[in-house]
């Protein structure tokens, strides 16, 4: 099995004897789709973890306030 580069030169590879725009458009759209699929769960995970930490800080703060209230009324 021998693999041979199928084009004369780089510009031949890019134009693909007239089919270049179709082929390259597909591959660019394909790359964008896959990148979106790979990145979007990571980004939503990051946002979610930040949100959970924020809620935890609020919770801790409220707990502290309640304790202080309880201490002052006693």
């Amino acid at each position, binding site marked *: 099995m021998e*693999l*041979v*580069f*199928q*084009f004369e030169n780089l510009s031949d*590879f890019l134009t*693909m*004897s*007239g*089919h*270049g725009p*179709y*082929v390259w*458009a*597909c*591959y660019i*759209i*394909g790359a964008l*789709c*896959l990148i*979106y*699929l*790979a990145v*979007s*769960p*990571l980004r*939503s*995970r990051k946002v*979610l*973890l*930040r*949100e*959970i*930490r924020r*809620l*935890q800080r609020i919770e801790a703060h409220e707990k502290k306030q309640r304790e202080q209230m309880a201490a002052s009324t006693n």
Partner: protein
Amino acid sequence: MDWTWFHRLGSPKWFYEKTNAWIPWLAVISISLLLIGTVWGLAFAPADFKQGNSYRIIYLHVPASFLALAGYYIMAISGAIGLIWKMKLADMVMKSAAPIGSVLTFLALVTGAIWGKPTWGTWWVWDARITSMLVLFFLYLGVIALQEAYQHQDTANKASAVLSLVGTVNIPIIYKSVDWWYTLHQPATLKLTSESTIHWSMLYPLLIMIAGFYCFYALVLLQRTRTEILSREKKTKWVKALAEEKGS
């Protein structure tokens, strides 16, 4: 047979921890396969004697269509498991599979349209295969919409599981459309029961791309499901500890 693994699968925490180690492997394997397949298909596979270089779109179009369909199975089956056994994890997989499937179906439709222009002379025809793929795209969008439409997650899961199960009627239609209504779309290139109608020099990069798409699909489905687990379990101790750990 030992069925404890099936019960454990019902525990999102167990699943989350178990799949931690799989992510880097899947990422490395899928990126390598996709890169090798793309370079091979674009530059080293011979040009088609009828279609010239435009056929190179096959290396994207066929794997995307494969996974658009396989992804529908995964979504419908996990929807059914969620309905029947009330398994939380199955509902999360169903929800996660919908957006991935919709993007892949979109990619299959768009690459098909772009391929159609130099080959058939038109971007779009209401051919049976293309129309049934468009229906698949709308089914995915329907599941996404139903997931967002309800206040209660349980109701949303039930509704979208029912929709995805009803939608499976479309799957055999897509497969058989090229044989039942022989119009414009060519019949399947890869067949399980008989020899493929493609030379090995074009077939190998295609198989590599399909394998790469499968691994990539597994990777992104896992990632989405894991994020979904964290979101639904955010009140639990282990998720809070995890968030704390990632923040410091």
